[in-house]
């Protein structure tokens, strides 16, 4: 249990306890790629207590031996106003409402530079919480290809936090981030002006101020976090009773009263905050991003026109799948024959060693033949994984999902499930391992 704190915690060096870095961002922004690059593949996977939400953490590689840094990969989320349990956990972790997650020593927000405004919407929400924050500006290469030049220094000044450009999938920019994280807590301070990022109307600021004081009195958070929490409670209609901080029961009444006052003044508290945030984000975008090639069609755009075409798109999909499955059957034949031979040979050799009877039958016809029958499919399955990985990496999987989504959604699945579903014609157990978790 953390001790109760009324003031923003000064960075007292915790030589025994590891430092905690929370990794957050929109779904599909490259967060997992960055997490793998920072921690190697030795992540510890478990659950948050009492819920079926995956908790993934790992130790930062390349750090000093006396000071461990733990990176916690929070579920991808579009907003601190949660629409799902995953997003709720991400939000609760950042608001220090989960008993097993202490106040983070740093928060890394992964921002997809090619979807900048949408990602900045979330990033500004996180910065407002007041934790020491870094923006990892990922997919800088895609943004450049699309004709967008981001002025990183200007963006950093506008947001009040360091911004590190990177291409996580190519390993660019990761070293700089690792250095920053390994020299915590001295390398990072709290954001320059979290409360000034988004200008809200004075009426809303007034209501937020009184709520903020009551939340701050509950302790265990920065003053900036209290203000951000106040704004979240004010605008968050869904599930308000369950979203109150612990021991914040009487806040419910105060939030309702605050909203009633705002409604009486003709203010739609539900949308006012979202609009204010996008106004701020738009302004930052205008200041910091330059369009070098406005509306120029990239190679990717030209390909998309064909790949998602009503007729040609489907023809190409059929061709790709035919090629894929035919290749799998053809290339797998030789290894499969070899494996069958090996399994058969092992069975015969073991058979000659054992006396005839039930034991020999159990081992040769049961264990060896049984395991062998499964092993024989290994070449096919490996090839299938290889092809699906290839489709995913080239980006074609997303186009296939786009084409097939309507059919798949009729049976409650996502377009991405199309190819694994087809593979069930080859092997049913393979089909029930989706190659990538479904994301909103």
């Amino acid at each position, binding site marked *: 249990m953390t001790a109760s704190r009324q003031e923003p915690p000064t960075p007292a060096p915790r030589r025994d306890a590891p430092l905690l870095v929370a990794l957050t961002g929109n779904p599909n922004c490259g967060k997992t790629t960055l997490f793998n690059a920072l921690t190697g593949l030795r992540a510890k996977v478990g659950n948050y207590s009492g819920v079926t939400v995956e908790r993934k953490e790992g130790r930062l590689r390349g750090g000093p031996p006396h000071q461990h840094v733990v990176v916690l990969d929070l579920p991808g989320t579009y907003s601190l106003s949660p629409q799902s349990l995953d997003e709720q956990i991400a939000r609760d972790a950042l608001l220090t409402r989960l008993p097993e997650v202490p106040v983070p020593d740093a928060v890394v927000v992964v921002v997809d530079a090619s*979807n900048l405004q949408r990602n900045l919407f979330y990033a500004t929400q996180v910065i407002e919480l007041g934790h020491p924050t870094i923006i990892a500006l990922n997919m800088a290469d895609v943004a450049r290809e699309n004709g967008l030049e981001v002025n990183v220094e200007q963006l950093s000044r506008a947001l009040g936090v360091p911004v590190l450009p990177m291409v996580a999938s190519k390993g660019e920019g990761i070293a700089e981030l690792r250095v920053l994280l390994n020299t915590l807590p001295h390398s990072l301070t709290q954001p320059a002006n979290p409360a000034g990022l988004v200008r809200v109307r004075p009426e809303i600021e007034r209501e937020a101020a009184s709520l903020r004081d009551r939340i701050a009195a509950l302790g265990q958070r920065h003053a900036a976090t209290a203000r951000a929490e106040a704004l979240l409670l004010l605008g968050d209609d869904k599930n308000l009773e369950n979203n109150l901080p612990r021991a914040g029961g009487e806040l419910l009444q105060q939030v309702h009263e605050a909203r009633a006052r705002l409604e009486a003044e003709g203010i739609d508290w539900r949308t006012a905050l979202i609009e204010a945030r996008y106004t701020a984000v738009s302004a930052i975008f205008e200041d910091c991003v330059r369009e070098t090639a406005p509306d120029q069609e990239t190679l990717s755009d030209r390909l998309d026109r064909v790949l998602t075409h009503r007729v040609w798109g489907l023809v190409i999909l059929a061709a790709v799948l035919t090629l894929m499955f035919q290749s799998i059957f053809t290339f797998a034949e030789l290894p499969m024959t070899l494996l069958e031979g090996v399994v058969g040979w092992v069975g015969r050799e073991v058979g000659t060693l054992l006396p005839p009877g039930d034991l020999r039958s159990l081992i040769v016809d049961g264990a060896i033949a049984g395991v062998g029958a499964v092993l024989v499919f290994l070449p096919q399955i490996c090839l299938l994984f290889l092809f699906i990985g290839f489709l995913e990496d080239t980006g074609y999987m997303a186009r296939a999902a786009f084409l097939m989504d309507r059919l798949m959604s009729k049976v409650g699945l996502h377009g991405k499930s199309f190819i694994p579903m087809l593979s069930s014609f080859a092997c049913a157990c393979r089909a029930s391992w989706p190659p990538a978790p479904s994301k909103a």
Partner: protein
Amino acid sequence: MAAAAQSITCLAPGQAAVVSEVEAPEDVRVRLLELGFVTGTPVELVRFAPLGDPVEIRLRGSNLTLRRHEAEFVHVRPQA
């Protein structure tokens, strides 16, 4: 002269418009607003998938793909 508001799915591929409002059940409305469909945002309908669903929309410098029944909640005024 401002055209009448209609659902974004009534636009033709390549057509530009401006968001007038989002009419949807509360959760969906909030999420669509958080994705950028705030009143006054310029949008462009890029394409429909071959089966009419999903639909790709361009707004705020990037592309977004929505299921048709969700996109239908976004009301826009087409630009000339």
